[in-house]
């Protein structure tokens, strides 16, 4: 029980954010209107993705120093979960964009950057598949992971800020960012972010343990 408190917290927070996200009062902004509720679902996906990819980066560094197989497993599983959340983020964003921007894909710099970041991590998985020997696979894919991560940071955090984006809060759109997010949204938004980050961590630990059990079985047989 003591160890599981954060899993309960994650469930409670996510359930709360879903119920509150749909039912609570939201400010009526031009263009956005009720679609503003998407902030409680779309943005936490990116937070979860970035946290998971950072975890993957850290475990890749650890693997290079320790050559411990478990670190490699953790790196690949957190990358997997990060990719899933990235895809969810793209999909929730595209559905929302269809209603507010008129097109599911509008050549927005943030949209493009997110898609490219996913390509980097899909390439990481392809690289892993092309290597047979486990230690070599771990080492080489860790090198690629560490090499790609700083470039992904530039891609996600610096390049979109150099051009105008259609995203709310950028380029004179009505909207919100950390400074001017409407106060009514905050009590739901921050718990949602925390909840989804915890859920992604939970999924990663489960996947990691499954992989460890599988490895042990392979070893015995």
């Amino acid at each position, binding site marked *: 029980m003591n160890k599981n408190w954060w899993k309960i917290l994650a469930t409670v927070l996510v359930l709360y954010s879903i119920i509150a996200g749909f039912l609570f009062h939201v400010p009526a902004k031009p263009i956005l209107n009720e679609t503003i509720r998407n902030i409680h679902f779309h943005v936490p996906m990116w937070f979860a993705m970035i946290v998971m990819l950072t975890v993957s980066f850290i475990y890749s560094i650890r693997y290079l120093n320790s050559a411990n197989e478990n670190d490699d497993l953790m790196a690949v599983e957190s990358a997997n979960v990060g990719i899933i959340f990235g895809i969810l983020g793209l999909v929730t964003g595209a559905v929302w964009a269809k209603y507010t921007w008129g097109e599911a894909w509008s050549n927005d710099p943030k949209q493009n950057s997110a898609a490219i*970041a996913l390509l980097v991590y899909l390439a990481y998985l*392809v690289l892993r598949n092309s290597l047979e020997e486990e230690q070599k696979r771990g080492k080489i894919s860790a090198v*690629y992971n*560490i090499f790609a991560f700083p*470039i992904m940071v*530039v891609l996600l955090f610096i390049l979109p800020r150099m051009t105008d984006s259609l995203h709310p809060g950028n380029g004179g759109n009505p909207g919100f960012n950390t400074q001017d997010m409407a106060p009514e949204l905050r009590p739901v938004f921050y718990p949602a972010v925390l909840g989804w980050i915890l859920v992604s961590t939970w999924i990663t630990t489960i996947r990691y343990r499954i992989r460890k059990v599988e490895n042990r079985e392979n070893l015995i047989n």
Partner: protein
Amino acid sequence: MDLLNQVKFLIRKEIMLEWRSKYALNGILLYVVSTVFVCYLAFREITSPPTWNALFWIIMLFASVNAITKSFIQESRGRQLYYYTITSAQAIIISKIIYNIFLMLLLSAIALGFYTLVFKNLLGDPLFYFFAVLLGSISFASVFTMISGIASKANNAGGLMAILSFPVIIPLLVVLIKLSKNAMDGLDRSVSYDEIGVLIAINIIVITTSLLLFPYLWKD
């Protein structure tokens, strides 16, 4: 032998190896020239500046992937083991990056020359455009050298090279295209300082991570 001397010797070795066979150099130059010519026959003329710019960078992208893929594959495992015993890993990666920068500078100068010869020249600020191209070739060299090192360790290095390098090079390419477009439109040079700064920053990050990571790759 200290690092500087090792790097100098290794670069000289690369150039000498290249000069003896001339196979890679001639091959890649022919590749660029024929690609430009194929594009010329397909397009005939390009009147819109964005297309002109985009086509040039696409040609450069494929040419540089082709040029740099070989940098780790062409040498046999036995010879690599020999280098491993006598030099440090840092010296190897620095020398490869520097050699590839030379190669890319040559390649891009020839590509740009031939491209402007065949297609009508639309450049507003040719000198600054040339500077953007030079900066681009340095960026390509620094990113692709490390990726080709990674790809060379896997089976099917050629195919993997494109998959691994394209997503990584796209951010650089986006900035490069913007920078060169500014130069093309003949905008004031001070407009582009942001882009130049980002490019230099990314290059520094890439080269430092390469230096840190290559020893792990090389030890194998």
